[in-house]
């Protein structure tokens, strides 16, 4: 009948809890209730007594008994008491089982205790919390002393190492995706086990009994103690309720309980955030507080007790920051106050060197956050160091995480506070918003721009900032992308970004979902729609940034957010938009509107100056340029007086420059253009080549400078003059090219391993043209040699794409033969192939080796 009594008492406890009793008092009351019951049981059992001691272990030993926690008991006995054990265990344990309690029980002699504790670390720490309940006090004291003598004293370092190892393993096991959404408040990082680990170590190694003593010993600061204590209290209340709610020993905050818990703790929904999201935000923040405090604690203790680290030499890397024993240290408090940007410099160094920041310096950062005022938030030095972390840190996730945990990130970018530890109540967003943002920066770094087909990014720091800030507007009722784009304008201003950079950042944040949403929900074959996309995105560079940001964002969201399937759709829409953007003018009519419409536009633009007969302009040409440019070309055409004269015009598109050449078409014209460009240090990236019916060639070549050179420094006038000389056959391009690049000759024997050149002639890929692809090792003048060779065969090149893939270049030509038909004759194809291979294999045109 005793179990009925026990059950009634526990029901009474639940009643008290419903009346508002929670936190530590509830745990103590529960422990007391079980204590009273067990002590009475022991007293009432005639066989119990001499040579026996009933001991509470673990959480029960600490008097922290949660509603459905295990009750860990040890019946310690002297070997002589062996025969009397059966009735005692029956009297003690059976009623507990009958009452439905989870009992962890052991019946051991003192020697068996020590032997087991040596074997089993968990039993060892359970013994740390041993508390005498009933029976022989001397027996208990003997066990207690023997345990400390055998396992703790003289084994302090080993004990610590074991504890830290178990802690790390536990963090890994409970750090997986599923535990991010549904934290395990006992085992997860920052949960009860971390609290206990700190208390056990303090108790066993330093004899410190509680948080107060730990603070007084200087192992944690008063501020840490306060927030740690609050977090602990909060988690106790959560766990009490979670047990009652689940009706069993459950310590994981499963999704289905979160809302009910939030309601019970009076978190109500506001506009923009759900109550449950703010509830979970508090949980995550408290878990983080405990994780950070215990991390620092363990590093500190490890340093005190651990083996001396290598590299005792101290090295100053800048005034106020040194490297000692492979850790970065802040060394000068006075200097920090004078130059508070040192706080950020510390992280820049951590990023650059890959070294960890010493725990004491992390505390120094946290203690100096008051120095991060509005003035510092506008400081150029601060911004430079911060952007340095974003762009160059070796392990950017680690550095930013520490920056977040010390509070520096939110102090520097106060907009971050709103989303710190903010949870999203769905199964899709696995991480809290702040972690997701850091993760996005890390994912972005992993994406290599070279692996994408798109244009380069001129300002990687803007892209990195966009990754860090794209969800900054979350937690409000407005559209988060829209709100975010407004917030980042202010941040960009403080960071000292230029006007265009700010606009670009704001654009990226506002549109960060655009590509993904569009790729999934819109018809990618709808040309009008694709054009609207291109109009919104405006430049190839923005497209590249958006594409990379979309991938990084998805990958950082959770295991289900990114699939190859999505990747394929994203690539498809991006390629389609890129093609349009490359044509610069997005208002261009598509083919359905036709060349006739274009011609009418040109006529309207030019008025009387329009050519009487528009049919000299081929349809494909008309569809490749906006009316303004066609009109411009027609006007330039009037300036072409002689057969052997060329008009050259350059334009700056930032990522590349373009050169327009207009001349009377002649065999080898393109070769001469390419040769002249090479002579002037310009690499051709792509080319569009047209010939009007009246024999006017209009060639647009996109080029990049071979050397570091600005658009203004390039001598465009000289280029035009040389081209005119070449057209008049007064310029020996071949020997000049060799002369110019002689300096780049490579010493024999240093040649890299290179892929063999090859030539592919393809009549299938394009309906209209024969595509000739030349794969060759790059060298100056290569394009000149190839185009000259094709001219010798009287092959007309209508379009060209030149790209490099490491050492190899891939030159793609859309060609027709002299009768304007595809090259179908196999023997002619072979002849062309051989001639081009000869050019490609010949490394310099003169047999010498060139380095390029």
């Amino acid at each position, binding site marked *: 009948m005793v179990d009925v009594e026990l059950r009634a008492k526990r029901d009474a406890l639940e009643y008290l809890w419903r009346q508002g009793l929670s936190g530590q008092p509830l745990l103590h009351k529960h422990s007391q209730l079980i204590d009273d019951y067990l002590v009475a049981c022991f007293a009432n059992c005639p066989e119990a007594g001499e040579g026996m001691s009933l001991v509470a272990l673990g959480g029960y030993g600490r008097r922290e008994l949660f509603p459905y926690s295990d009750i860990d008991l040890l019946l310690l006995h002297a070997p002589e008491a062996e025969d009397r054990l059966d009735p005692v265990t029956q009297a003690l344990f059976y009623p507990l089982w009958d009452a439905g309690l989870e009992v962890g029980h052991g019946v051991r002699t003192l020697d068996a205790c020590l032997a087991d504790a040596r074997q089993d670390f968990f039993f060892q720490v359970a013994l740390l919390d041993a508390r005498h309940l009933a029976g022989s006090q001397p027996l208990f004291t003997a066990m207690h002393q023997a345990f400390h003598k055998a396992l703790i004293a003289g084994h302090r370092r080993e004990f610590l190492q074991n504890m830290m190892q178990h802690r790390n393993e536990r963090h890994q096991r409970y750090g997986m995706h599923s535990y991010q959404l549904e934290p395990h408040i006992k085992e997860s990082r920052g949960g009860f086990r971390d609290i206990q680990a700190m208390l056990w170590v303090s108790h066993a190694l330093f004899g410190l009994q509680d948080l107060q003593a730990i603070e007084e010993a200087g192992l944690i600061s008063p501020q840490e103690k306060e927030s740690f204590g609050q977090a602990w209290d909060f988690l106790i209340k959560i766990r009490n309720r979670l047990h009652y709610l689940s009706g069993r020993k459950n310590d994981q905050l499963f999704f289905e309980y979160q809302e009910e818990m939030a309601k019970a703790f009076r978190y109500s929904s506001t506009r923009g955030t759900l109550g449950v999201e703010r509830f979970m935000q508090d949980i995550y923040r408290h878990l983080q507080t405990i994780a950070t405090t215990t991390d620092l604690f363990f590093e500190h203790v490890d340093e005190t007790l651990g083996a001396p680290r290598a590299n005792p030499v101290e090295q100053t890397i800048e005034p106020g920051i040194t490297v000692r024993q492979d850790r970065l240290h802040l060394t000068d408090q006075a200097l920090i106050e004078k130059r508070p940007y040192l706080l950020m410099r510390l992280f820049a160094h951590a990023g650059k060197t890959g070294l960890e920041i010493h725990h004491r310096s992390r505390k120094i950062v946290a203690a100096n956050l008051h120095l991060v005022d509005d003035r510092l938030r506008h400081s150029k030095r601060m911004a430079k160091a911060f952007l340095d972390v974003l762009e160059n840190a070796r392990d950017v996730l680690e550095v930013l995480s520490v920056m977040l945990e010390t509070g520096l990130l939110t102090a520097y970018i106060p907009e971050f506070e709103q989303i710190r530890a903010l949870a999203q109540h769905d199964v899709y967003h696995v991480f809290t918003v702040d972690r997701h943002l850091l993760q996005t920066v890390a994912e972005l770094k992993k994406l290599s721009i070279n692996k994408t087909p798109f244009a380069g990014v001129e300002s990687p720091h803007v892209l990195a900032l966009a990754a860090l800030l794209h969800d900054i507007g979350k937690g409000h009722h407005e559209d988060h992308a829209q709100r975010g784009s407004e917030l980042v304008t202010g941040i960009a201003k403080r960071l000292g970004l230029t006007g265009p950079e700010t606009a670009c950042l704001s654009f990226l944040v506002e549109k960060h979902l655009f590509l993904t949403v569009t790729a999934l929900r819109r018809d990618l074959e709808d040309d009008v729609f694709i054009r609207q996309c291109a109009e919104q995105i405006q430049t190839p560079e923005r497209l590249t940034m958006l594409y990379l940001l979309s991938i990084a964002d998805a990958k950082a969201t959770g295991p289900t957010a990114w699939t190859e399937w999505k990747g394929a759709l994203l690539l498809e829409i991006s390629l389609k938009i890129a093609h349009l953007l490359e044509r610069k003018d997005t208002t261009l009519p598509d083919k359905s509107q036709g060349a006739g419409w274009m011609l009418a536009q040109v006529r309207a633009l030019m008025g009387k100056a329009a050519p009487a007969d528009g049919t000299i302009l081929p349809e494909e040409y008309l569809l490749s340029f906006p009316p303004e440019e066609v009109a411009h070309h027609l006007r330039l055409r009037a300036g072409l007086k002689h057969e052997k004269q060329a008009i050259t015009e350059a334009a700056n598109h930032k990522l590349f420059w373009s050169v327009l050449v207009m001349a009377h078409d002649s065999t080898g014209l393109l070769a001469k253009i390419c040769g002249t460009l090479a002579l002037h240090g310009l690499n051709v990236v792509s080319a569009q080549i047209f010939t009007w019916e009246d024999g006017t060639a209009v060639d647009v070549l996109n080029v990049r400078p071979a050397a570091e050179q600005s658009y203004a420094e390039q001598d465009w006038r000289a280029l035009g003059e040389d081209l005119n000389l070449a057209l008049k056959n007064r310029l020996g391009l071949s020997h000049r090219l060799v002369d110019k690049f002689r300096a780049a000759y490579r010493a024999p024997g240093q040649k890299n391993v290179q892929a063999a050149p090859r030539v592919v002639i393809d009549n299938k890929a394009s309906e209209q043209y024969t595509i000739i692809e030349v794969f060759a090792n790059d060298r100056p003048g290569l394009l000149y040699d190839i185009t000259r060779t094709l001219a010798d065969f009287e092959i007309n090149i209508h379009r060209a794409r030149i*790209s490099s893939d490491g050492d190899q270049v891939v030159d793609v030509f859309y060609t027709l033969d002299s009768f304007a038909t595809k090259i179908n004759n196999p023997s002619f194809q072979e002849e062309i192939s051989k001639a081009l291979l000869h050019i490609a294999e010949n490394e310099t045109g003169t047999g010498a080796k060139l380095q390029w």
Partner: protein
Amino acid sequence: MKKIEAIIKPFKLDEVKDALNEMGIKGMTISEVKGYGRQKGHKEIYRGAEYIVDFIPKVKIEIIVEAAMVDAVVTKIRETANTGKIGDGKIFVLPVEEVIRVRTGETGKEAI
């Protein structure tokens, strides 16, 4: 009972789902698939490099209906998923021998 498998363009999923819901079809299985039919893969040439898209992303919808419903469902999917362009997809109708609800053990019509 028949199983209807429809391969459609991804952006048509919401429309098709809504249309089927309106007809009273509440349950379906959706998966992200890749493949090619007459649309083939295609080659994109961009900045000189080729991007071969050999399998095209599609969405597969699977629905089990009574035989009497098949025509109506197929027509509805066809109407909704049609853009008139190549690559709109395909619909397959397959016989189903039996349907069993795992929880209750109900079979046949009741289990759909």
